């Protein structure tokens, strides 16, 4: 904006000064032409006396006070144009023959003056010098250039206003697609879209393409890392199974310590290595419908624990969504529910809801209860205490809860174990918004 004002100002100054110079040179030409008009009407006698026939066609020379005055001065006297009647003119100043001068009004002076010195050739050979002065009142030119300047600045101001409006409009039009990008990125961020849509203006297409490529790279990197860690975990487990299958159930001291070492390895692989692949949580993961996946788990557990005839009640807030990895949700719910089915005698209840509903990607809470024997407080602490070695953990709930704890830690949430009103254990998991 200031640049625009400055540029328009400079243009104004340049145009107005060019106009001023043009007006002056036009004036000079015009004044010169009056010199010739007057010379043409002049008669000089050999004595040097002269007269001018005042029958000019131009009324400006005739009408008194018209602003245009001509003086002729020489040795034979002085002549003034009829327009100079009653006008106070500066005294004439002689100029040598063949010389002309053009003067702008001096300080305090009112007239532009053009003087032209001539030598009048007499028939008998003498030369009589004259000076013809044309005076034009400065007001005329000032009015002319003033009117021009006024018009000029008005036009420039109008142009400025139009340019500013055009600029505002352009900025608005140009920025509109950028605002769309902003909204689309926000949609991706909140998990409502997986990638930026098509159909941006050509200038923005490369940006959208690059963002999409970045998203895909991130996804595939994640998959690659997970894949590598998974296959490492898997390839460790089969040799471990071979070792395990070779160990007798009731062996001696050596076998027992091998068994302990194997148990610890198993624990580390399950809680650390496998979770390292899973807990690299994607901030942009699409939301996972909680109910659907819990139902899958419950159905699977009914199959595995079919001899127990457990009744499972599912109470979830409608349309509950998990903003994280599907496999993390299955892992959490699978381990919690598996324990409940294992230890419950007839009934298991699952409830869940939103944690931080005001957020774009809220967290969830899940509570799994059973009517089994429950867990004494000292066991709960041991189960949730970090850094406890596998063989020091309480058998039974152990590994499943350890995996839950690792996962919940990765999400920055918390696990609490309490007594359920149903008689058994109640394990509650709270995951914060992402």
């Amino acid at each position, binding site marked *: 904006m200031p640049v625009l004002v400055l540029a328009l100002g400079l243009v104004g100054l340049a145009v107005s000064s060019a106009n001023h110079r043009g007006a002056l040179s036009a004036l000079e030409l015009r004044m010169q032409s009056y010199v010739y008009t007057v010379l043409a009407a002049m008669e000089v006698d050999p004595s040097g006396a002269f007269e001018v026939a005042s029958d000019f066609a131009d009324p400006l020379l005739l009408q008194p006070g018209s602003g245009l005055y001509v003086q002729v001065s020489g040795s034979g006297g002085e002549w003034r144009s009829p327009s100079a009647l009653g006008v106070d003119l500066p005294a004439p100043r002689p100029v040598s023959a063949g010389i002309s001068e053009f003067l702008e009004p001096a300080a305090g002076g009112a007239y532009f003056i053009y003087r032209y010195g001539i030598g009048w050739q007499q028939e008998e050979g003498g030369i009589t010098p004259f000076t013809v002065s044309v005076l034009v009142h400065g007001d005329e030119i000032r009015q002319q250039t003033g009117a021009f300047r006024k018009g000029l600045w008005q036009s420039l101001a109008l142009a400025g206003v139009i340019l500013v409006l055009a600029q505002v409009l352009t900025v608005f039009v140009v920025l509109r697609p950028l605002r769309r990008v902003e909204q689309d990125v926000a949609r991706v961020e909140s998990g409502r879209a997986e990638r930026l849509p098509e159909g941006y203006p050509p200038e923005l297409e490369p940006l959208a393409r690059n963002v999409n490529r970045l998203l895909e790279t991130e996804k595939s990197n994640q998959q690659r890392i997970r894949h590598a860690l998974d296959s490492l975990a898997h390839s460790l487990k089969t040799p471990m199974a071979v070792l395990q299958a070779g160990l007798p*159930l009731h062996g001696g001291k050596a076998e027992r310590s091998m068994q302990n070492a194997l148990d610890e390895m198993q624990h580390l692989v399950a809680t650390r290595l496998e979770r390292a692949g899973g807990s690299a949580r994607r901030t942009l993961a699409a939301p996972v419908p909680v109910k659907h996946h819990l139902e899958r788990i419950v159905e699977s557990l009914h*199959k595995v624990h079919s001899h127990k005839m457990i009744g499972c009640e599912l109470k979830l807030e409608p349309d509950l969504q998990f903003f994280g990895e599907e496999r993390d949700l299955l892992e959490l719910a699978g381990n919690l529910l598996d324990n409940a089915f294992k230890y419950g005698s007839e009934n298991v209840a699952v409830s869940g809801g939103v944690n931080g509903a005001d957020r774009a990607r809220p967290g969830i809470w899940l509570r799994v209860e059973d009517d089994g024997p429950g867990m004494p407080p000292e066991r709960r602490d041991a189960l949730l205490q970090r850094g406890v070695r596998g063989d020091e953990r309480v058998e039974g709930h152990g590994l499943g809860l350890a995996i839950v704890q690792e996962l919940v830690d990765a999400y920055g949430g918390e696990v609490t174990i309490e007594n359920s009103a149903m008689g058994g254990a109640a394990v509650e998991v709270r995951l914060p918004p992402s």
Partner: protein
Amino acid sequence: MRILLIEDDERLVESLGARLREAGYALDVSTDGIEGLYAGEEFPVDLAIVDLGLPGLNGLEVIRRLRQRGRDFPILILTARSGWQDKVEGLEAGADDYLTKPFQVEELMARINALLRRASGHARPQISLGPFLVDLSAQRLLRGDTEIELTGYEYKVLEYLVLHPDTVVTRSELSEHIYEEDADRDSNVIEVFIGRLRRKLDPDGSLNPIETLRGRGYRLALAVTS
């Protein structure tokens, strides 16, 4: 009982196979998915143990196809993939239970036992057979507090009959489920086992626990309840 083990790790097949045979199961082994699928379709299998990461055809697909083709014996997944996503997918494909590597062999035996029992409709491992009690998990036969000693093959024949009550079981069926596919079978041997079982169950000849239906096979004549 005849078990099909589909597992590609030969060391595991070796050590696990030894333990399963030791426990009295007839065992068929396939080390890839395609062969395993064929064995599952063609052999009289009572239970299959399937690894998920198999060459040829993956375990999930083997299970899916076996179920599509109407094979309804229990299937236990044995895999290194311990995630619940894999467990749920495996169970949804038609498996009945899931055990992750590494595992205690005793745990596997207990699962196999439970699956076989459930497949024949028994909820508990103790099954009463007239005045006897058959303990499927301990593989013992009791009358009151007294254990009746049985050899491995005698027990296997009795177990098969107990898990198929009210059914006429042919000699060849018995030999198929007791011997492995490539074993040198002689169905006359079954007759010998049945004779020994009858003498052990009914030394004074008053119970007639196993009926012979001439030209058809054998049937348990005692009431089986769990």
